[in-house]
């Protein structure tokens, strides 16, 4: 093995912030090197320096032993460095071939795009590395996993030897994650070297050859996966002991706070996506709704919170029927909602934090006196909540968009929990968050439960569902296929239900499957 990339003493500061503080990193040929750290630890900054987007204040970059200067992504590509961004840079209305050749158009006779030649090369690459993609398919028709494969092909097409994958699993389903890992293995077998950026502990343990943990812009340490446990990695990342198990007392269910009967809901494209769902949530318990994304959970939550009108069925919150009631009336009945898409629904990103903290209550005293906003009260409220909910920000007057994902989510949680609530609807409450934030938000949800709030938890992370729920409902194709007590549900059983296997059959299979390799989520 030879060293293909060496970073020495990379330092980069932004006004008021030392983003990278003398970072050393080496990448060996044919290695998967995971870069682990919480949001804001400096991973992305480091990779942007490597990719030529930022200029380091200090430090050297050596590629295959030679010191190089990288001033732009084009330089990086010339040095054989390719980056797969977290947010794909693809044109949806173009074909795979066209996307791959974008920027490095191959032409015939100088003017005509030579699509056939590019398509041929794409097929070559996809066969060689096991990247299944149809060169003639349109990007918009491809699932997310396939789009990611296109991004990887783009990088390989530009003949990169060093691949940087930035949070590649954040957008993938569990099955797609498995597929990606297979591809990664093939890539390293064929001699490519990878830097894998993530904050998910299980992933790094499953795929990395070496793990470098960053915290606060510094390298905490570089370890091998065999030498560490999840708990050890987590404490390295966060800088303190982290409890990965949610501690909770047995549930003490009270009266019914949410009752849903035979609910039917259409989605934005008018497809019937919730077809006859019935369940109830009691005060002081967590009902988890598990299921692969896109089985009607989103529309179910929209219907419960008044964002989407219902087609038929009945919703009762604290005994009162909700029938296409406006969101505000629902909120005023004591419902808190942590929305699935925090940037679309949860926050007005350009608004300062203090305004986001009163997004649902700005019109009520003490925040408003008549129609006049009480700015002082709003600011004080925000400062108090930021303190209480550990929102890390230089001030409550900065826009919410300047916060990291975890802190944005904490703003939402702080806002929703600061109202007197009977029912909490939490949809994907920890998606995309780092370990520290997940731990914090989980503990807050459990705290609400013990205070007697009914909690409806919707998540596609099975671990999360199992850690928090008292009862688990599995949703598949718009219906709830089973509701089981959490104590009796195994991960295998739930996984089979999520895949659409009939509950009885699933129960049999689950017993057989217990010995199988644990799937990585």
């Amino acid at each position, binding site marked *: 093995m030879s060293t293909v990339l060496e970073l020495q003493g990379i330092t980069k500061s*932004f006004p008021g912030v030392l983003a990278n503080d003398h970072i050393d990193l080496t990448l060996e040929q044919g290695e998967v090197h995971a870069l682990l750290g919480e949001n804001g630890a400096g991973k992305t900054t480091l990779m942007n320096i490597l990719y030529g987007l930022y200029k380091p204040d200090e430090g050297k970059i050596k590629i295959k032993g030679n010191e190089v200067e990288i001033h732009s992504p084009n330089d990086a590509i010339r040095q054989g460095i390719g980056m797969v961004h977290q947010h794909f840079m693809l044109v949806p209305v173009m074909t795979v071939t066209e996307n791959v050749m974008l920027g490095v158009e191959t032409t015939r006779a100088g003017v005509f795009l030579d699509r056939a030649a590019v398509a041929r090369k794409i097929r070559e690459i996809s066969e060689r590395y096991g990247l299944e993609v149809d060169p003639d398919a349109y990007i918009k028709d491809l699932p997310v996993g396939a789009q990611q494969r296109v991004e990887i092909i783009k990088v390989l097409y530009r003949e990169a030897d060093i691949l940087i994958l930035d949070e590649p699993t954040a957008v993938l389903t569990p099955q797609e994650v498995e597929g990606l890992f297979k591809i990664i293995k093939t890539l390293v077998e064929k001699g490519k070297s990878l830097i894998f950026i993530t904050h998910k502990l299980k992933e790094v343990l499953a795929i990395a050859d070496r793990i470098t943990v960053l915290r606060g812009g510094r390298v905490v340490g570089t370890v091998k996966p065999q030498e560490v446990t999840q708990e050890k990695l987590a404490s390295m990342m966060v800088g303190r002991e982290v409890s990965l198990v949610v501690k909770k007392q047995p549930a003490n269910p009270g009266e019914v706070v949410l009752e849903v009967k035979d609910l039917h809901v259409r989605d934005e494209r008018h497809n019937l996506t919730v077809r006859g769902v019935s369940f109830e949530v009691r005060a002081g318990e967590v009902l988890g709704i598990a299921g692969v994304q896109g089985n009607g959970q989103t529309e179910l939550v929209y219907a419960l919170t008044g964002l989407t009108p219902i087609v038929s069925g009945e919703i009762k919150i604290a005994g009162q029927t909700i029938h296409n009631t406006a969101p505000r009336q629902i909120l005023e009945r004591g419902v808190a909602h942590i929305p699935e898409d925090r940037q*679309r629904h949860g926050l007005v990103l350009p608004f300062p934090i203090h305004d986001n903290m009163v997004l649902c209550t700005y019109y009520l005293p003490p925040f408003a006196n008549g129609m006049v906003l009480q700015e002082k009260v709003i600011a004080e409220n925000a400062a108090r909540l930021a303190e209480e909910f550990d929102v890390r920000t230089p001030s409550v007057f900065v826009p919410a968009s300047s916060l990291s994902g975890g802190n944005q989510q904490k703003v939402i949680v702080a806002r929703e929990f600061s109202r007197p609530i009977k029912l909490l609807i939490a949809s994907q409450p920890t998606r995309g968050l780092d370990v520290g934030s997940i731990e914090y938000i989980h503990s807050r949800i459990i705290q609400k439960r013990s205070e007697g709030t009914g909690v409806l938890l919707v998540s596609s992370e099975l671990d999360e569902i199992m850690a928090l729920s008292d009862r688990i409902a599995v949703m598949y194709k718009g219906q709830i296929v089973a509701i089981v007590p959490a104590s009796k549900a195994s991960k295998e059983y739930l996984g089979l239900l999520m895949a659409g296997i009939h509950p009885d059959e699933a129960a049999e299979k689950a017993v057989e499957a217990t010995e199988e390799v644990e799937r990585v989520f």
Partner: protein
Amino acid sequence: MSAKETKTSKAKPRKEKDLQDKKRPGAWQVIAMPLLAVLTGLLVGAIVIVVTDARVIAAYRNFFQDPLGAIGLTFQTILVAYGALFSGALGSPERIFLAFERLFTTGETDGLVRAFWPLSESLVAATPYMLAGLAVAIGFKAGLFNIGAEGQFLMGALGSAWIGYTFHLPWYLHLPLALLGGAVAGALWAAVPGYLKATTGAHEVVNTIMMNWISFRLSDWLLNGPMKATGYRPITPVVDSTATLPRFFPDPIRLNLGFIVALAAAALVYWLLFKTTFGFEVRAVGTNPDASKYAGINVPRNIVLVMMLSGALAGLGGATQVLGVDHWVGQGFSAGYGFDSIAIALLGKSHPVGVILSALLWGALRNGATRMQSMAGIPIDIISIIQGLVIVFIAAPVIIRWLYRIRTLETEKVVLTRGWGK
């Protein structure tokens, strides 16, 4: 970008001013960028003036015989043009000085009136721009692109004129009623596209343009029919003096209470937008309608309300123009105030203070252009070119940043409209 979060601390209640300072590190850019855009617009405008001037072109044909003459003529042309623009917009300093001198020596105020007439005309010209600009700006704040300010302006003018000449009331009733009538007419005119947007999702850009055309034709009909004055001219009767906005100075200075009304409207809009729950909703809907719906804000209701408020401001603009300046409405009443107001809202970054400043600039440019046309023989259209250039530089700040080597501000993002459809 993740670097910012590395060095974080828990929010501590600090002194607000302290925090305000930290709020925006490049606040000066907010002021500097529009100023530079205006400056650059004037510079490029100077080039246009020169290359369209027959005398200058002729001088360059003979450049090699008399290079100094050609260059001299170039700068002289620019100087004369912009000198006239300046003195036409603000008055000539020399005249103002002499007028004061005469005032102190002889006590005559006549010279003073003439010396300050250009400045007063700039303010008169700015008044409709202020109100129409505020109309468009408040629409932008709510994510609505109200292109219909022109039509609302016209309907407001007709509404206030009608009240002005139909009723005969004491001034303390008549004037407020006439102003209100203008605002209501504009509001109703804008409510139609607002309602269509709120209920059916029909895009306001299309519908406000259509409403403009309807208003133009409706006004043609009204002026030739129901609202036609005695005599043959297709104009409305002149409004009663009880409905006119009082003028502050003797003729020919037309500066009137309408200017104060516009400033007051700007203050009101500022207060509404930034200090009230209504403004909170408007801004929330404008920046993120999904989150607004989630937060329980009635988005359709807000769309209708904002459109009506926008229309009311534009209508008030028409009303102040009728009641303060013209006292009657004829064909070609509006010199494109409603359309220019889009540019003014853009230049003012949709902020009431910015709108006032850019409206003053617009008024000064347009008024100064009169003198420039007269004294320097530069067609009045050159001002439209300069104004267009300013908007190009505002809309494409990259050009300005590149020209003056200004670094990008990460937080600077103005949400104007959410584009077509959903």
